[in-house]
């Protein structure tokens, strides 16, 4: 087990202290600029005077021990499960192992810690957690050893939970390869945040998400990929099929550090709006501190292709069925480039 990785995880006290310091998310905080923050209930442990707690230290509990990871964490969703006393499920997958696993938290608040050894091959499906209240939050801390090959995916059935957060903190060593893929059909408000640190040379992170939303669903993705070593690569592909009043936001940051030569990164967001009132917000951020890198970003918003619709219908296929065919093909293309694996099989079957 990677001791440094485990020790750096914040304790509940540290998370609470940091949350009280941060205060509740506000729209003027760029991490939450697209999110309906008014829908987030104030956790009991923050009390009613949390906003003043940073200046009125007498009202605060005794300061917990310093923790760099906790003190630098700015994401409410990353701290919430720990602050809510989620008991961490800690698991080590030893070097060279090959494992297929399914994870399911048995509480509204879950914290999973995985330490994946060198050269391991892991397929990890995340199932919906057991939910009893109006808010759920899960956190995953995943440390990935050299040359390990890991797929993380979820394709949960539509969830009408009023508010759900999922936060992933991923750290990759040299030559590691991670494929992160998801399908979301939730009907309420949700946020998936991913922070991926490519710490070793040649590490790769591949992110693919598909949102198929209707009604008043409001789903938010926040990605931050840190290229912290030379020749690291990352791909982001987010596709959205939105109807009704559905809204998706995609906030994707790529940060390339000093001396990180040969980095290659791409980000592409494709959205099809099926109704007048559906909407998408996309915010790409590139912070590049080295010259020899290749980073691209793109965003398309449109309707179903009129010529493709005409072609299908002109062969006798009813309009509604033709629309469904095109929507399905748009959705499937998200995951077609994945290698044959349990994740691909599951995601394609879900579509």
């Amino acid at each position, binding site marked *: 087990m990677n001791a440094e990785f485990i020790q750096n995880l914040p304790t509940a006290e540290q998370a609470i202290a940091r949350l009280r310091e941060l205060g509740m998310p506000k729209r003027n905080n760029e991490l939450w600029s697209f999110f309906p923050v008014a829908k987030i209930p104030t956790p009991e442990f923050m009390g009613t005077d949390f906003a003043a707690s940073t200046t009125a230290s007498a009202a605060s509990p005794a300061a917990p021990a310093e923790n760099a990871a906790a003190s630098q964490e700015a994401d409410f969703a990353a701290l919430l499960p720990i602050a809510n006393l989620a008991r961490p499920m800690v698991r080590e997958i030893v070097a060279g192992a090959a494992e297929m696993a399914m994870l399911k938290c048995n509480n509204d608040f879950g914290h999973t810690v995985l330490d994946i050894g060198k050269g391991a091959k892991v397929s990890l499906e995340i199932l919906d957690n057991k939910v009893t209240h109006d808010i759920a939050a899960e956190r995953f801390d995943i440390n990935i050893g050299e040359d390990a090959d890991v797929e993380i995916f979820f394709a949960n059935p539509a969830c009408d939970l009023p508010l759900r957060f999922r936060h992933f903190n991923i750290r990759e060593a040299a030559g590691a390869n991670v494929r992160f893929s998801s399908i979301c059909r939730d009907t309420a408000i949700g946020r998936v945040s991913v922070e991926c640190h490519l710490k070793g040379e040649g590490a790769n992170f591949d992110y693919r998400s598909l949102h198929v939303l209707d009604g008043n669903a409001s789903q938010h993705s926040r990605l931050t990929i840190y290229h912290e070593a030379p020749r690291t690569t990352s791909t982001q592909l987010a596709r959205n099929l939105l109807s009704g009043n559905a809204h998706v936001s995609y906030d994707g940051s790529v940060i390339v550090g000093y001396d990180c030569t040969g980095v290659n990164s791409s980000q592409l967001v494709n959205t099809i709006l099926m109704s007048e009132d559906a909407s998408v917000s996309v915010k790409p951020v590139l912070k590049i501190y080295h010259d020899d890198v290749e980073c691209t970003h793109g965003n398309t918003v449109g309707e179903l292709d009129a010529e*493709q619709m*005409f*072609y*299908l*219908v*002109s*062969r*006798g*296929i009813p309009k509604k069925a033709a629309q469904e065919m095109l929507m399905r*093909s748009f959705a499937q293309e998200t995951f077609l480039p994945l290698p044959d694996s349990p994740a691909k099989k599951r995601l394609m079957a879900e579509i």
Partner: protein
Amino acid sequence: MLSIKNLKASIEDGTQILKGINLEVKPGEVHAIMGPNGSGKSTLSKVIAGHPAYRVDGGSVELDGKNLLEMEINERANSGLFISTQYPTEIPGVNNVEFLKMALNSKRAFLGLPEMGDAEFKKLCEEKMDLLEMDARYRERGVNDGMSGGEKKRNEILQMAILDPKVSFLDETDSGLDIDALRIVANGINHIMSPEKAVILVTHYQRLLDYIKPTYVHVLRHGKIILSGGPELALKLEDQGYDWIEEAK
């Protein structure tokens, strides 16, 4: 069978492309439509199919006595009309075979026939693919996805063979075909053709008509059919071009 009377149509900006087309097509006939670029040949096929980029200003198009212009696009196809456009649309992600099966079963549902099952459809598909000398790769690909011009045209004729329409309007089916592919596609069309069906071919060249013998040849120019004749007309056009027609007037 197909009766086009005084058909007029324009594009969105109001420019009229078809200025009164008249054409009678009977069962068993092959009609070749020739004409210079921009004369309205492709527009004619799209207007009959119901392409939303065109507005019908007047006239009628009847198939077996039913007004196609009053039908939805899919109803026109299911009533027996097949249009192959000059540049078949690529639809990546929609599997070619699934699309064909969906199209065929849509037609069968329209006609009140039971859905064709997987085994029967596979057999039909293989038979038609053999006819057109198509290999199994076509089955795995998206509709026209990444296909060369010639492959797309062959794929169009495969659709025609499976959907078995009464009237097929094939717009420049010979473009993009090499010599062997032209022979294969033409043989396929001849094989599908029967005394109960009709084909309208749009072409610029006699070479397709060497394989598919036309009953009539028409010249379309400035949105109207200005001359009709037998197969010899195509040979004369190949030899002399179109200007002599205007001069003779």
